[in-house]
């Protein structure tokens, strides 16, 4: 008799796998990578490639050491490497970014048990560690095209530096100083549209995050559009905060995360010591995610 496969229903499953989800995220980041290379030159490409390679290598080695299944092929390490590169200055020394990527994977993800178990966005953990260890390298910014040392628009505004602020248009297309991948809102929004279309992210979190930043800045009398475009908000809201593993699961929870993150961002920008606060806001709300999930669990059918 032929042995047929006996397994529990359902016997049909969608073909999409974890790596397909990750592939969509990578595809969505292509425009931003292209913009980074356009504005900051080949150097940006090197930073990205080194970061991704280091993240993949770190994942491979740590999984080998911990005798776990090697999961580099799911693409999540590549995304972490790419995202870390995007939140670092284009001129960052290559050895520093390599260390950062390895730290992201090992401390941000593998020590917690690998993909799915990490409480914090791994790339942001890497960035936070680099900020603490090499603050100068992490805050040395350059102008697009000619790579002259300069300040970011947020820093110019915050510390009233004697430098002209870029126009809205230049902020929008990315012709300004800043982290490698955060400058071009246009490119980021293109990628975000793709993720929304593919249903890999939902509108709740990014829209509420950005709306909170815009609203709060106009309430305290600051320029909302400037606050939305000048820093890492678009990148953070669409690509960092929406990381599925570390953000709430229901629409309601996502809106809480988004609003909270937006408020915190403005507080840090105007009340804190740093000119930018997206990264830390997201990390703090990553920490609150289990709590948010607990209190926004859907009401089950039949009790309404």
């Amino acid at each position, binding site marked *: 008799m032929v042995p047929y496969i*006996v397994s529990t229903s359902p*016997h049909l499953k969608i073909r999409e796998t974890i790596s397909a989800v990750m592939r969509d995220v990578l595809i969505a980041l292509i425009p931003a990578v292209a913009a980074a290379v356009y504005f900051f030159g080949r150097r940006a490409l090197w930073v990205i490639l080194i970061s991704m390679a280091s993240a993949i290598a770190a994942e491979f080695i740590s999984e080998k050491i911990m005798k776990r299944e090697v999961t580099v092929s799911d693409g999540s390490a590549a995304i972490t490497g790419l995202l870390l590169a995007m939140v670092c200055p284009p001129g960052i020394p290559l050895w520093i970014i390599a260390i950062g990527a390895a730290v992201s994977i090992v401390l941000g993800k593998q020590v917690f048990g690998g*993909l*799915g178990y990490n409480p914090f966005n791994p790339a942001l953990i890497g960035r936070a560690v680099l900020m603490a260890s090499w603050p100068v390298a992490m805050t040395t910014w350059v102008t697009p095209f000619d790579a002259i040392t300069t300040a970011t628009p947020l820093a110019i505004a915050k510390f009233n530096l004697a430098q002209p602020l870029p126009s809205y248009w230049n902020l929008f297309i990315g012709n300004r100083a800043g982290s490698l991948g955060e400058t071009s809102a246009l490119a980021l929004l293109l990628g975000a549209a793709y993720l929304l279309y593919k249903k890999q992210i939902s509108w709740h979190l990014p829209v509420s995050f950005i709306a909170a930043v815009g609203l709060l800045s106009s309430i305290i009398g600051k320029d909302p559009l400037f606050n939305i475009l000048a820093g890492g908000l678009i990148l953070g809201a669409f690509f960092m905060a929406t990381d599925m593993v570390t953000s709430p699961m229901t629409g309601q929870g996502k809106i809480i995360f988004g609003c909270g993150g937006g408020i915190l961002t403005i507080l840090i920008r105007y009340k804190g010591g740093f000119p930018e606060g997206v990264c830390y806001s997201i990390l703090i709300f990553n920490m609150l995610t289990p709590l948010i999930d607990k209190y926004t669990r859907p009401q089950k059918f*039949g009790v309404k």
Partner: protein
Amino acid sequence: MKALTFSGGVHPSGEKELTCNQDVKVMPPPKMVVIPLLQHTGASCESLVQKGDKVKKGQKIGESRALITAPVHATISGGVKEVRLYNHPLGNKGLAVIIESDGFDQWADDIKRDDNFFRLLPQEIRDKVRDKGVVGLGGAAFPTSVKLTPPADKEINTIIINGCECEPYLTCDHRLLLENYREIIEGLKIIMRLLDVGKGIIAIEDNKLDAIKLLSAVIKMEPNIEVAIVKTKYPQGAEKQLIKALLGCEVPAGKLPFEVGVVVDNVGTAVAIYEALRDNKPLIERIITVTGSGIKEPQNIKVRIGTLFSDIVVFCGGLQGDIAKVIMGGPMMGIAQYTLDVPIIKGTSGILVLTAQDTFAVPAGPCIRCAKCIESCPMDLTPYLYGLYGRMQDYESMGKYDVADCIECGVCAYGCPAKIPLVQYAKWSKMEIAQAKKKKIEKKDKDIK
């Protein structure tokens, strides 16, 4: 008219074209049938016959005195070869009556047409429905007489005939709507009269336009019956989801549709009720869909209960290709079989044979918290937690997260990119929880003694 629906659910590919346009063929009675004594939700029957007995078609061969149960009947005439444990399609083995045909296919004497059936009193109707072994034919096989006996304090105001057939591949209800619409309407009218209800709804998914058109035309003369169009979405045919779509109300958690004044019956059940009353005909045959890329001639057939899968497969041209799975029922909730040496039962809606190309075996990965399972769960549960706690065998926590409300529809596991067997965990934990409860009660009994 706008198609109605519920929130959540998924859209698997229907695969219904394989069979939906062919008339139902009658499969000749097989040489041997295997009739399990438990074919329904409830208590098992005890055999009324012994090895060597002669039986006729329609003769009662299994009965129980329990409250929730349904008798079983001989589905061919012949001799009882044996009463013994046999492979059961719901898993494991179950006691079954094995009958060898005498080739005459002779009805039992008491099975005659009764043209005065509409004079029957309500209790007589219920008794007859029970006596003829009618159970829900949509899959769960709940005894119909119980369903037709609402508690005295519940007023029933709507009868829904479920013709959604949301499971992919299956088309037997679709064919029934097209070929037996008269019996369906008569069956519905019997239920409406029995429960003194003024509103009957026949619900059909909008992928069966021909059936919607036909039924809408024939009910023009019936002021109390309407055809409702519901969206093609899985699990649109699940009782609570269907009620929500049609009437907008939610059956309270852990309760039956009685609670909101509704009785839902499958189209096949309506036909069976009608035949039980008018023809005195026990539930000895049903229409099933035999389909899938592993079947040479996919089709709908009318087949005797107790016919072996192997005989049915031969009738449908045999198997083809690299067979991976043989499933009783549809792909979303059906039960995988390890052999063809197993009989169909009253609740069998189809035999689905999938080849290696259809099945998609990827090892389970970690939950990436994508929330797809939460968004699509029709019961608004948090299935990812069943994966989380299931892996740790923490069944108690799963109970806390309402695993009891899970209808095992398979929607969560269907869409999970990490391929986590969420339904398997849910089923396990329900069994574990039930067993723990039983132990507790037993312990209490002992303590009292």
